[in-house]
């Protein structure tokens, strides 16, 4: 089995493609569901129509995004078995079961309530509807939890022994609560909230910039920015914590993320340099060039001035991950995270000075433009963060236990290409459709004219052509 064969490479690219296009959607679903619950709850409490309009408007965007998430998610579930058959067989006792938990306790649960949330307006009581929204938010967070349990276990596989080609679970608690998940899951969950908050803030800022519905959109903009004052720094803190875990449990991954080849300098002192820019040399045993700041790496990873950080020279050459992708994607993620934190502080400062009220908010177009721009940054950081995680784990599919080349299905190159091309076409179709329709719904703006739903009076949908027929009155079922 050739580690660097074209077939293995294509399997990796294929999976990278599927994952990258799936991960665009669920984070918004998870975060936005919670915000929808908040909007709807405020509406129930205050009976203020603005909250209702906001709920219905963002719900439309939510649905589009959710559909895309399901379509690409089914693809992922099947891709495990198809592209990584041997991995699926070996890891089934833990990984497969965790995905099983996910489909049953989270996904199924979510899909059931999402039907009620989307189409239940007016058919079920307001309280029941709020309950449905609450359950969508809760279950989608469960989804994120199980997925991160599975993925973190691939990073730090505790609680299992590999015997006869199968991962036998010896300790469920330590397998589920593996070292990586303790920071990995919160980091992802908070990423979902940060993404959704920036999404809501960005869309709202866009409306304010256009001077449309300022009274309605000033409110979510202010709330989102105030929440981000807490969420954005929290995310930086959690990211740092996750970095410590990676440094401790996956030294090879950390060394690749930092382009850190040499544990010691030539004079025997500890190499503490942190590279801003670097490019590995052709031999793969050092950087061809690098811009380096001393002591920063030790400060970041060990929180001391000269702490030792193992370099790639402590790892066998055949076990070293690729450097360029994790190195740069990690830097992009961190930079985006820092920028978002600054935007949040800026917003917080404006809010403190009462400049984010509906009356004054439009007077600061620069800030609004920055917020609109920032709505794309969480997507960039989710992508780059995930690439960092997955590429830095190579050449292992289960870190230290099972190599990626052992986990891939035995497929011919033409078949791999068939898959890749097919997936590219479909994922791009979903992607194009999603953004086209999101943009379309946003441009159209919230529906301010249709009456606020009353309990038990809504028919299925609205009447398109009332002239030709009498409207249906399907309030009660006809006996069969």
């Amino acid at each position: 089995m050739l580690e660097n064969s074209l077939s293995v490479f294509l399997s990796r690219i294929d999976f990278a493609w599927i994952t990258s296009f799936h991960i665009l959607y669920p984070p918004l679903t998870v975060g936005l569901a919670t915000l929808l619950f908040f909007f709807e709850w405020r509406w129930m409490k205050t009976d203020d129509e603005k909250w209702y309009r906001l709920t219905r408007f963002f719900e439309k965007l939510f649905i589009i995004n959710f559909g895309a998430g399901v379509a690409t998610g089914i693809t992922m579930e099947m891709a495990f078995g198809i592209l990584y058959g041997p991995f699926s067989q070996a890891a089934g006792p833990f990984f497969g079961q965790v995905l099983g938990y996910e489909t049953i306790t989270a996904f199924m649960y979510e899909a059931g309530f999402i039907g009620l949330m989307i189409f239940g307006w007016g058919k079920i009581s307001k309280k029941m509807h709020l309950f449905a929204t609450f359950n969508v938010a809760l279950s989608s967070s469960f989804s994120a939890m199980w997925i991160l349990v599975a993925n973190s276990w691939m990073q730090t596989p505790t609680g299992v022994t590999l015997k006869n080609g199968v991962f036998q679970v010896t300790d469920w608690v330590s397998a589920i609560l593996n070292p990586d998940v303790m920071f990995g899951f919160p980091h992802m969950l908070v990423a979902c909230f940060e993404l959704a908050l920036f999404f809501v803030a960005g869309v709202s800022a866009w409306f304010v910039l256009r001077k449309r519905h300022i009274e309605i959109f000033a409110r979510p903009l202010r709330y989102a920015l105030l929440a981000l004052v807490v969420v954005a720094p929290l995310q930086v803190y959690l990211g740092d914590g996750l970095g410590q875990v990676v440094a401790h449990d996956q030294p090879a991954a950390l060394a690749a993320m930092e382009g850190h080849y040499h544990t010691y300098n030539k004079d025997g002192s500890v190499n503490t340099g942190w590279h801003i820019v670097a490019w590995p040399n052709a031999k793969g045993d050092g950087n061809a060039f690098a811009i380096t700041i001393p002591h920063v790496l030790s400060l970041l990873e060990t929180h001391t001035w000269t702490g030792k950080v193992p370099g790639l020279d402590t790892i066998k050459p055949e076990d070293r991950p690729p450097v360029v992708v994790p190195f740069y994607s990690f830097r992009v993620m961190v930079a985006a995270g820092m920028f978002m934190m600054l935007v949040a502080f800026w917003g917080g400062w404006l809010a403190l000075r009462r400049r984010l009220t509906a009356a004054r908010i439009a007077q600061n177009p620069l800030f609004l433009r920055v917020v609109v721009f920032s709505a794309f940054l969480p997507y960039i950081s989710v992508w780059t963060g995930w690439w960092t995680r997955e590429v830095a784990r190579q050449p292992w599919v289960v870190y230290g236990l099972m190599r990626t080349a052992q986990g891939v299905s035995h497929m011919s190159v033409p078949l791999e290409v068939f898959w890749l091309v097919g997936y590219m076409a479909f994922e791009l179709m979903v992607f194009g459709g999603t953004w086209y329709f999101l943009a379309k719904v946003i441009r159209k703006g919230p529906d301010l004219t249709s009456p606020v739903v009353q309990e038990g009076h809504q028919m299925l949908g609205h009447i398109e052509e009332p002239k030709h027929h009498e409207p249906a009155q399907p309030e009660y079922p006809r006996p069969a």
Partner: protein
Amino acid sequence: MQTMNALTQTQHFLTIIWWMSLGLSIMLYLMLDGADLGAGVFSLFVKDEHDRGAIMSAMAGTWDANETWLIVAGGVLFGTFPFVYGSLFSYLMVPLALALWGIITRAVSLEFRHLAEPRYKRFSDYAFGVSSLTTAFFAGMAVGATLKGFPLTHTPDQVPAYVGGALRFISPFSIWTGIAAVIAVALAGGLFVRARFEPQEDIRKHAATWTNIVFFIALAAAVITTAWSVIIFPWAANRWLGPHFYLWGLGFLVVVYTVIRMRMASNREHDIAAILWLNAALALMGTGMMWTMYPWMVPNTWTIFAGATPQVSIITFTMAMAGFFPVMLAYNWYQIWVFRARVTKLAAYGH
């Protein structure tokens, strides 16, 4: 491969329970989403654009919950029978890929239709119909290919993996099961459309004609499938024509009875009753098929015990999951109840 892990009594029992749960998930998927797929196939024969839109809106509230039973089936298969999951999906790579692309296209056209420009609506409708058809066909083909079994590696101390080409799944029988699956969902879809529309709607009359014709085609398809299975699968012939043939014969008569009741209900326009009788027939045939195959999960390839995950895991899985099935069934029911109202074609998808 029987020696992969020796099973205890408890494990035997739990494995059988999970095998039944898997069967239940697949059956529920067939019953619930089979009707949606069939309505999609039917929509290919519907000329009026508003009628096609109304068919989609009729399933709007429930289709994603229906479809999740497929995902649950996948989750249970991966979770409790990982050895089968890994090798079976390698074997069925191509038909599953095509079915999957059908499912994605369907989801996209269902979700986005009401947002599309009028001139793209026709494209979206067409995509919906064709993808429903391809999903049913390739899923049916995958079932037929599974019944034929597939070769495995026999490396000592390693999990047996699939050996063979990507196109091995193609056989006259698997092509036939693909066609049969399309016929079966077409019948379910016709009944679904009849049950979901107001009596005075034209589309409902159209669906009535449709079910009357498809009923006889489906009957013929069931007979052909059974006869073909007896001829090519010794494991099926041995069970059905073996010493307990009278029990199987009795079961066969019960199926015939449900089919007759379905036909009667359909003729009397008892739409819900017709669907329930059809589902009863499906459930009986599905259970019969599982019983026929026992102890094989994939005939001559994997027994349910060889394919099951080791003991510790399966017990944990059971403890965590068993309570969820009744809960899911309860709210599936609640959801169908909430969206029970009949629709007219004028009640559009908007919300």
